[in-house]
């Protein structure tokens, strides 16, 4: 309850976004790409207004556990999409893969001091991007993929298909216009 109150107060200060969201939006952390990444997660669709790409490099800590050694992002989207991308890189950098997979949308929303209800989906997108990056890493390593991660991956694939179906005319238009530009 206290936390909720704090979130509300924060939103009062700056309008629709909390101060923490605005801080990350103005100065996002870990922007960019990683050359030869160990895993990449690409989620969202430009047609819906949000696209997030997360790149991870996996290393080992002193105890020999796999950790996220480096993480970078590229995002197309609103203030919330950029802020959630930035905070998730902060939250998982240096963490073990297991810890990273434990990050959920509530953790992201709370770390940002709240998000407007219509923007909660941005936090889901950030979690999805991270899961996809770890999925990609494990798959490339030909390792067993935990059931939770498998489920998330299947849901994302399914959503992708629905969006492609919904916007199939537009995807064609886009491809045509890109071809036109190239000619």
């Amino acid at each position, binding site marked *: 309850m206290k936390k909720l109150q704090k979130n509300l107060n924060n939103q009062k200060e700056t309008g629709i976004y909390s101060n923490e969201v605005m801080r990350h*939006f103005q100065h996002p952390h870990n*922007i960019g790409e990683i050359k030869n990444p160990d895993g990449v997660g690409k989620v969202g669709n430009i047609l819906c207004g949000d*696209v997030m790409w997360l790149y991870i490099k996996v290393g080992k800590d002193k105890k020999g556990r796999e950790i996220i050694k480096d993480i970078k992002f590229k995002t197309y989207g*609103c203030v919330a*999409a950029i802020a959630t991308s930035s905070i998730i890189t902060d939250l998982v950098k240096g963490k073990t893969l297991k810890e990273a997979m434990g990050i959920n949308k509530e953790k992201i929303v709370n770390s940002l001091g709240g998000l407007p209800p219509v923007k909660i989906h941005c936090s889901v997108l950030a979690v999805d991007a991270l899961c996809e990056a770890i999925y990609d890493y494990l798959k490339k390593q030909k390792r067993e993929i935990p059931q939770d991660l498998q489920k998330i991956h299947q849901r994302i694939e399914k959503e992708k298909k629905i969006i492609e179906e919904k916007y199939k005319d*537009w995807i064609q238009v886009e491809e045509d216009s890109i071809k036109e530009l190239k000619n």
Partner: protein
Amino acid sequence: MKNSNKNKIIYLDYAATTPVDPRVLRAMLPYFSEKFGNTMSLHSVGRQARLALEKSREKIASIIGAESKEVIFTGSATESNNLALKGIAFANKNRGRHIIISPIEHPCIIESAKWLEKQGFKITKLKVDKYGLVDPRDVEKSITKDTILVSIIHASNEIGTIEPIEEIGRVIEKFNLKNPNSKIYFHTDAAQTFGKIPINVQKLKVDLLTASSHKIYGPKGAAILYIKEGTKIEPILHGGEQEMGIRSSTINVPAIVGFARAAEICQKEMDRESKRLSKLRDILIDGILKSVPNSFLNGHPQKRLPNNINFSFDFVEGESIAIQLDLLGICVSTGSACSSAKLEPSYVLLALGFAPQRAHSSLRLSLGRKTTRKDIDYVLKILPEIIKNLRKISPF
């Protein structure tokens, strides 16, 4: 990026609303506590209020080339548009049930039409070209024996394109002359044009016209619906029979007095102000096109409101640009102010045939009385850098 403009807010959202002109405020003040009467009262205090109301009506009627009795005051352009659509639909449903609108109307028209559709009316949404223009020939083709109303926005609140209302009016007039047994009414929502470009209801050949106070430096809470004499219309508010029985409600005299004064001032200053704004608008448009790669002007390059600028920027999202500008003291909108709480891309830009990402990346800047060349130069200094920084984050 440093905010070198710390002490000043540059307001470029005049299409959303405008500040009340001090001259307007002065005209309104006596009508709050001193001449506070109810226009329906028989006594002297009531008469005072009634006099102010009728004088205001005369002023606005003469500006649009109408008779006083043809002007009804309402509380908002949304209300006027609801009254126009629902009032005409219900009064004429025995003759026909077909209504034609454009796909780029304000949400209050689109939603009223949707609601009427649920009540058994048939709605045709016309097509527009890539600039948002309605083709009068399309109106002609869409008219049937069942048509009772055509409603086309005078100029888009979002992209600023000015529609060929006069030509559409001629098409409808021709049909009505050929078919004496049917009557198609023609309504235009002039909320964005009234006070900015000349409006004459005879010349435009409209039967109904909506205009609003707060878009022209008047107070919020006053608008008109011009209703041509002889038009069959049902009220949507029933009660004390104010406004010739078409709009019952206690009359908001101070707001209406302010509206009339604001209209008077805009009419007087229109020529000079629209020239000044068009010039600033074109400097800003050319400046953005030159300094921001992959930027596109939305709306018609010439047939557009003197104060409207609407751009799409590839690879960045509109809200992010708007909030960055806000942090540097520049107030603008994504699409229209009404749609910014929603996540859907602008339906207006989608109707123009653009892909959703172009509709997600749009930004509206609307200029007004306080906009100066210095403001425009400041925007041109800041905006390209903001877009560049956001593109650095973007995966595309």
